[in-house]
């Protein structure tokens, strides 16, 4: 554990689907307390890398250490219990549950109050204060009894963020947290993510470069499954290869 300031370290991560190599030999170090952004043009392998790190996909080669512990072969649920929780690119909430119930299920899972089939659900109200804190943080308090299915897209993302925070993870992985959000929501969410830095570590995939520039401490750029640059926003933005990747891609 020589690099103990890094909460997550990946070495030589590789994933191929048949002949197609989605991620080829990526090294990634996420420093504790940082907000670390993962950017790159479409098809760069960002989402695959995400799935590899959280073990929703098993890597073809390479290894992953979380808090110095080898998690290369751990199942996804175990990783969440260790304190590394992800959100999904396609908004992933419980659509038929209300905002309140969505967050409460997450708190319940965190509190391990999940097996008791003979107990009344009334006991679940002990999570109310925590739910309140979380909905206020993401600005969903006025919509507490709205079913997730009836929320506008940006608010669904905010809800997902709240359920992720409910687990109080040390490392939060956010897959395009601002995608589909309106300007108002983007500002709110940026501020929220920025406020997480220090206490939590955040690794996020994000397309909105302005947001990335604003809130990231460190940026890794991927292209065609390979890491082409890493550093602060200014360093990365000055990199020739990064410029050509973005000029050639759909993003300006």
């Amino acid at each position, binding site marked *: 554990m020589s690099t103990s300031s890094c909460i997550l370290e990946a070495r030589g991560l590789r994933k191929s689907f048949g002949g197609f190599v989605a991620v080829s030999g990526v090294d990634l170090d996420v420093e504790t307390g940082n907000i670390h952004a993962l950017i790159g043009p479409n098809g760069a392998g960002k989402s695959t890398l995400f799935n590899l790190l959280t073990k929703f996909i098993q890597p073809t080669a390479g290894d992953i250490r979380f808090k110095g512990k080898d998690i290369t072969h751990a199942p996804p649920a175990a990783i969440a219990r260790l304190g590394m*929780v992800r959100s999904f690119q396609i908004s992933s909430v419980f659509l038929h549950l209300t905002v309140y119930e969505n967050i409460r299920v*997450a708190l319940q899972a965190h509190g391990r109050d999940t097996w008791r089939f003979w107990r009344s659900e009334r006991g679940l109200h002990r999570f109310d204060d925590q739910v309140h804190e979380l909905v206020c943080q993401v600005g969903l308090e006025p919509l507490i009894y709205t079913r997730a299915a009836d929320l506008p897209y940006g608010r669904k993302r905010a809800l997902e963020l709240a359920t992720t925070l409910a687990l109080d993870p040390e490392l939060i992985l956010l897959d395009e947290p601002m995608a589909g959000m309106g300007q108002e929501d983007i500002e709110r969410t940026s501020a929220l993510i920025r406020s997480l830095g220090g206490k939590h570590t955040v690794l996020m995939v994000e397309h909105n470069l302005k947001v990335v520039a604003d809130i990231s401490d460190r940026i890794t750029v991927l292209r065609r499954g390979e890491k082409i640059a890493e550093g602060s926003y200014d360093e990365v933005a000055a990199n020739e290869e990064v410029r050509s990747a973005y000029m050639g891609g759909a993003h300006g």
Partner: protein
Amino acid sequence: MAHRYKDFRPRLVSDPMRYGLLALAAVVALAAPMAIFPLFLVKVLCFMLFAAALNLVLGFAGLLSLGHAAFFGGAAYAFAQSAKVWGWPFELSLLFGVVVGGGLGFVFGLIAIRRQGIYFTMITLALAQMIYFLAVQAPFTGGEDGIQNVPRGTLLGVLDLRDTHTLYYVVLAIVVICLLLIRRTVHSPFGHILGAIRENEARVTSLGLNVSRYKLLAFTLSAALSGLAGALKASAFQLATLTDVSWHISGEVVLMVLIGGIGTLWGPLVGAIFVVMIGHFLATSGLPVSLVIGVVFMACVMLFRRGFYGETVEYLRERVLRDVSLRATAGREGQK
């Protein structure tokens, strides 16, 4: 104690209406043996419990099992064997049936639960067919004849179950207790997790829970209650036969849940009453039972997918939810 937030469970009917309906159901249940042959009512009760137990996995965990006959029939054999051959008292034999049903369910679950969708269903069916095969081959089951003349005995040595009225009320009490247990399970901390798994399995995994274990518990509970239903039926009819373990039974109980209303507490009960009654009345009419049930099922799938009860509930729910949603939206607009 006042809580900051409420559980969001919109009232579909007013309270007086609700209690009125419950009271009506209670009166009907208590008075029914005066008008209808009690043994037939016991059969209805057994299938109500069986359907409600299946619904625990089918409706509340989203797992389609075609192997539940193994738990129902296996427990029927267990009851018959222990009550008749080993001479165990009624309660102990019943408990044995529950254990056999639950035990089989646990084993089936261990093997099948990690598989998704149709693969899960086919494995449960295959395992149940193995139990059927065992029942055909094993010497103690009596092959085609089954185990006959199983003594009913007494409840706690006091109530003589040979009296069919007594039997009916005892079975009614047991079934009601089990239905309350199912209701509690659905509305328990565990039930909330189960509901979340049915909605979005990947999300529950990412919350750090091993979904297979929760499904396995639900499946085992369901199998144990199905076993109780099978044991009760064996005690009432004093008989355990191959019919109880055959795949027809698995199919029929799925049908009951679907026709009544999947994922509702009352739906399976309605479905069980309906299917058992149809079977009973058609048996003497000369019409082919399975043909009629097939037509009813097709009509159900095409016209009211949520079943008799489920469709009614959904209609009421949508109406209430629309009001609530509108109010919530209006509240938000008002704040801007």
